[in-house]
Each structure stands twice: as C-alpha cells, then as structure tokens.
C-alpha cells in the first residue's frame, strides 16, 4: 500500500525507493537509463534525449544528456544511501523511428545508447540488461522491488527485462 509510480518526462530524471516504481511513457529515440541498488532497493531513471552535454545550446538541463544525466542520477542515489559501487544499470529505448529526419549518419537513438554505455563504463557501473534500437517506441515501468523493467511496445507482447 502507498506505493507510487513516478512518471519521468523527456529530459527528466528521478530517484525513488521500494515500493515505488518509475516510468517513462513513449521512449522513441530517447534512452531510458535505470540504475538500481538491489540490496537497498533504491533506483533511478533518466529519460535522456541527446548523447553529450557538449551538444547543449540553450538552457542546460542535466537530464537531457547521457553523460550529465548518469552523473546526476549517481549523485542523487548516493544521497539516498546507495554508493556507485552498489549500482547496476539497464538501458532501454533508442529506436530509429523516422529515417528521413535523421541528420547524422549514425541515428541519434544509437548515439544515445553508445554514449550511455561509455559513461557507465567510465564510472565502473555494470550494465546488466538492455533492450535497444528497432523502429518502435517503448513505454517502461521500472519496479524497485526486484529491479526488473516492464516494456510495452505497440506490436510486441509486453515483457520484462
């Protein structure tokens, strides 16, 4: 009783404790980064849009970029009592829905995923699961009881990562 599901909008990041959960609706080329401390059952979710804060143009928001969002999540989880060495990461999203719009040779979804992997590696946080790419958007719900992520897509049965 009393558990709450926290929606994490585009370019936002949030942390929470069991029994709450964290959700992101309609991840397209954005990537959802989850960090989870299995012992303390604390977790965080970032809904990142772009690979690097070097691409920041106006009004810098840490949750928007893979590098700064992961750093901010690690910092907030530390405040909840979960040090970086207790954390495990998962990555979901990074679809390539519109081919004609893509302005770079490498689609943004893939660049987001690559940047997130590199940042996790630099922070020595193990990547324990990923569901990336494809052509469809994803809605995710991150359960803080066991760290699993429920993934919904339009033309695929719901499944747990």
């Amino acid at each position, binding site marked *: 009783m009393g558990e709450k599901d926290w929606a994490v909008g585009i370019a936002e990041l949030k942390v929470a404790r069991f029994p709450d959960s964290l959700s992101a609706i309609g991840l397209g080329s954005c990537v959802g980064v989850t960090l989870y401390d299995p012992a303390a059952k604390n977790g965080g979710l970032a809904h990142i*849009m772009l690979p690097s804060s070097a691409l920041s143009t106006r009004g810098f928001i840490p949750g928007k970029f893979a590098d700064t969002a992961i750093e901010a999540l690690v910092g907030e989880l530390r405040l909840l009592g979960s040090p970086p060495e207790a954390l495990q990461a998962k990555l979901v999203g990074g679809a390539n829905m519109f081919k004609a719009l893509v302005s770079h040779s490498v689609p943004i979804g893939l660049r987001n995923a690559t940047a997130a992997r590199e940042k996790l590696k630099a922070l020595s946080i193990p990547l324990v699961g990923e569901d990336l790419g494809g052509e469809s958007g994803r809605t995710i719900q991150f359960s803080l009881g066991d760290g699993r992520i429920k993934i919904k897509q339009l033309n695929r049965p719901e499944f747990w990562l």
Partner: protein
Amino acid sequence: MPSLNEFQLDALREVGNVGAGNAATALSQLTGQRIDLSLSKVCVLPTDAIADFLGGSDSSVASVCLPVYGDVTGVVLVFFPLDQIHELTHTLVPRAGAAAPTTEGLSDIEKSALRELGSILTGAYLGALFRFIHIQILHGLPELVMDMAQAILDSVLVELEEKEDLAIVIETQLMAQNQKMTTKFLLLPEAGSLDHLFKAFSNTLGLPGNG
C-alpha cells in the same frame, strides 16, 4: 512565449479553410469520389500539450512526418486516428474484399496512400500560407509511422533539438462515404522560424507584431 492574436488566428483560419478546400479537390480528383474536408480547429499549442491533444501520451496514432524548409524550417506531422485507419485507406485505395482486416497490417499500397494523403494536406496548407502571408515553405518526402503518440513526439523533438516550444495546429474533419475522420496537421518550427512566421502574419495584416 509568442502567441497569435485574434486577427492572426483569423488569418490562420483562412489558411486552414483554403488549404482544406484545395486538398479536398485534389483528393476527390485522385480517388474519383467526393471527399470533403472541413476545418474544425486552428490553434497554437505548447509542445508539452501536444500528447494530450492527440489523445494522451500512450495513445496509438498513425502519423505522416515531413521535414520542411525554406522561410520556416522544422517538421510537419499529420496525424490520423489509428482506430479508423482501415476506413481511411479504404477511401483512398478501395480493397477488393469487403471486410477490412482486424490487424494493424497495412499493405504497401495502403501505406503509400497514407503518405500521399499526408503530402497532399501538407502541400495544400503550405501553399495557402504562401498565398496569404507570402512565406515560402517546402516539404521533403513523407514518412509513415504508427506508434505511441509520445514516442513519435519524442523522436521528432530530439531531431529538432533547437525547437520552438509551440506548434501551429490545423485540425480538419475528412468526410467520405459517410465516414468522418479527424486529421490533425502540426507544424513544429525550429528556433527563430516561429517568430519569422508570426512576423509574416503581422506584416500581411498590416498589424504590429506582438511577438
């Protein structure tokens, strides 16, 4: 945040009416049957209100997306109701069999017809903008995506990182064979472009800009 005053909204309504009329003529000629389009709504929406306007973040929608460039750069999205998608494609390219399939599956011809419909509507509205406010916007090739509303917006907003926080919206009711379907046209301009558009509205009307 810039917005349109009543006079500018009237001008946008005129653009919508003329564009819808021209698109209806083109579609009627193309399909050999009567297709009517009537304007049901014209507005300027903040981007964070678009998902609700489309029926909610996780509602399933069909969308034709076209990059636009010229005096205004950005993206046009034309939305069709996914629950009526078979009625819509049947109007454009009638099926041989009587019963429409129950799955989401659309044939290549049907997908192509939807892309063409998105293109015709976009061409008609952009043409009307040129006629009324002398602003020239060209569009690129249409792409069709069927997905959650928020996932479509998310992907478009990422590509338009320097986006304006507003979208120009023209909603019309498409009527054919006693069916009524809502089409939603959204123009999402890149930074600087919306201001340019508003100024063009003001100049044409001989009114001071309010942006």
